[in-house]
């Protein structure tokens, strides 16, 4: 006869304690890195820590934060969106042309973009495609469309958008308030709503979620659709700030958004995400750019600095994961 079953759980108290410690450390990591960057800026250039300084330094934080939250949605269902950068650029071009001149048509195009994202999610799910290859293809599709629309920099931001993005809020600078709002909306939407739990569950254990009677297709489409929404908002915000568009405006956002999500405590697989963390990660990266300027690091090395920051954060994560977990 066969003998199986009844394996007692090797649940040691120490294991649980170190798991709690690791979790606490990892939760603290995003805030900690933001604090370190702000501290470093303060040490080098104390005058930058002011209403005016933050307004200037965090100028581009809003579009970056939005793109990051979009990337996070895709990563929550174990995929990666390499096209979000050129997508933001394309949305920017649409905003500076169609949305400005023929608002209805512009709105329609942007809604179509969101739909395209949802369809992409469906395609990746149904055909079980590697998202890397598909979104790499989309990277060039969006870029091609953007160049077709605006072969050379130009266009105008709609006046209302420019007015919104250059809002002067009392006491706390607008970018900080906006980032806070993005983080809160993301947190409530994904971490607090009942369907948000299902969506994250679809990243954590797709089989279980499917067995509980949920449609994985819908979950994937929802998450990609949300990424599309965030990408559109990011493009809008970007054009509101720059007032005119350029097809290559968003190219850097792909890496920034991935780095921001990781920096904010998100994982590549397993549905572990944190919208507030992602926003903090985006702020950290934006400020890091200013810090590099203050440190007089030559522009040649600023690209490298982005890569290095990402590597350092991942290394820190590995170190934390090893803390008290001898595996």
């Amino acid at each position, binding site marked *: 006869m066969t003998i199986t079953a*009844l394996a007692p759980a090797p649940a040691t108290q120490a294991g649980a304690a170190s798991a709690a410690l690791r979790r606490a450390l990892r939760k603290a990591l995003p805030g900690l890195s933001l604090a370190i960057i702000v501290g470093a800026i303060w040490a080098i250039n104390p005058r930058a820590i002011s209403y005016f300084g933050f307004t200037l330094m965090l100028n581009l934080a809003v579009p970056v934060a939005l793109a990051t939250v979009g990337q996070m949605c895709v990563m929550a269902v174990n995929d990666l969106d390499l096209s979000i950068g050129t997508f933001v650029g394309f949305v920017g071009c649409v905003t500076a042309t169609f949305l400005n001149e023929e608002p209805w048509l512009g709105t329609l195009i942007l809604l179509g973009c969101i739909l395209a994202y949802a369809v992409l999610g469906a395609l990746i799910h149904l055909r079980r495609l590697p998202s890397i290859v598909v979104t790499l293809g989309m990277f060039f599709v969006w870029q091609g469309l953007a160049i077709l629309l605006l072969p050379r920099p130009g266009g105008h931001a709609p006046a209302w958008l420019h007015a919104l993005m250059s809002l002067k809020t009392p006491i706390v600078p607008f970018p900080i308030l906006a980032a806070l709002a993005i983080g809160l909306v993301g947190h409530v939407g994904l971490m607090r709503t009942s369907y948000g*739990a299902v969506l994250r569950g679809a*990243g954590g254990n797709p089989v279980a979620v499917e067995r509980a009677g*949920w449609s994985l297709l819908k979950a994937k489409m929802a998450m990609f659709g949300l990424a599309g929404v965030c990408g559109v908002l990011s493009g809008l915000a970007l054009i509101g700030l720059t007032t005119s568009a350029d097809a290559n405006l968003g190219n850097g956002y792909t890496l920034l958004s991935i780095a921001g999500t990781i920096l904010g405590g998100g994982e590549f697989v397993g549905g572990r995400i944190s919208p507030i963390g992602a926003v903090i990660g985006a702020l950290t990266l934006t400020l890091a750019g200013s810090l590099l300027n203050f440190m007089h690091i030559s522009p040649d090395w600023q690209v490298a600095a982005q890569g290095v920051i990402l590597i350092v954060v991942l290394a820190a994560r590995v170190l934390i994961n090893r803390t008290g977990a001898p595996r």
Partner: protein
Amino acid sequence: MSSSPSVIAIAGAAKSFGAVKALGGVDLAMSAGECVGLIGHNGAGKSTLMHVLAGTLAPDTATIAVGGAPQAAYGVGLAHRLGIRCVFQELSLCPNLTVAENARVLHASLTGIGWRRRAARLIGAKLDEIFPRHGIATDAIVGDLPIGKRQMIEIARAFTVTTDPLRLVILDEPTSSLDAHTAEQLFAYLRRAVAAGVSCILISHLLGEILGTADRVVVMRDGRIVTQGPTIGFDRSKLIVAMGGAEAHDAVPAASASPRSDAPLLVRFRPARQGDGRELVAREGEVIGLAGLAGHGQTDLIIGVFDLAGRRSAQGEVNAPVALVAGDRQSDGIFPLWSIAENIGARSLAKFRRGPLLSSAAEDELAARWKARIGIRTPDMRNPILSLSGGNQQKALFARALGSDARIVLMDDPMRGVDIGTKLDVYDLIREEAKAGRTFLWYTTEMDELSHCDRTYVFRDGAIVAEIGRDALSEDSIIAASFADETSAADVA
């Protein structure tokens, strides 16, 4: 048993996976408030039947009626709405969500303002009811909890009720990660739930659990129900006979001239969690059995020996090349895109080298030799490995190990789901090879196979608890050692 219309009735359920017939026409009807114990050998079709009932697997043919009403488009969603729940052996919780959020995933109706509080109350109350003093916080992330707690959550979740009724709960090896105390709590609760009218199917390898809990026993073999009836009419030995465990007993090999205590030592290994000084020792030409309940450290030992090949460390020494025969073919053994010959040759690549290149003639020669020796049924060894049946794929994995230069062959429960014909072929081969000087470390979950071993080590909690010679070997001695409590860690050797 009540005579009310069946809660769920399935008739003529058949399902084949390729050439393997997993279910060959099964009829089963459950009454309200009935607990059925479902038992059978590996591959008897229990899991397939359970997946069909849960709607997670579409049968080739079957009629399913719930509460007397035939269900046309039966599937997961419908099964849920009809109140049929399943606790799968591989846990189906989302590790990245909290306990309460996992409850929400099961219940579509847990929405709107305050859903988190309601979900937490729902699962918390059920945990309190089934496992008093469970110590699980409803806002804990499931992935951070130990496996035992996760299984408790999984079970409690299956019994939570919101808007949909609860008719039937299927429990597949529910105690595999529970300690004795929590298992007892579970069975006490099961009896209460059944008394309250919930039906229940209990699948377990532990016959005591079945006999102590079920109202009716259903025994499956080869995809069919072979015996069923009120539990009163069965005892342990009757169940074993019904499962077909007895017939294989006459396959005991003639005692070979086994113990050669002067043969060279090939393996000496102490498990990482071994508290005392015991260690595993294997000499040239020995067949060593590794027994005990599944998941108690046998596979860890095999991997440990594999990694130590040709070296020595504080844990022990392994003095010859090793090869491993995987039990979980899909995840540990097969290269699905390759031919049979390439799969067999994977462990012997160095041997095929002629200059910088591999000789395909040498590879073909090895494949042809083992096709003849182990009897792989295929017209052409250059056919894809996936064109073979499961048993023949397993033979190819044996050929990979036995055809290599390894002196030590590690076997990780390699006969899982393998047909009896293949088994008998391989048993003969192992005896021959051992006679020729090869050493085997053989982890098996099938009691009969231990009779082929010169000595057997029994594992419990990651450590060796007994060493049993061939003469002293019996099912009782293995079970006694596997389950022994503090008082009797006897060495029967």
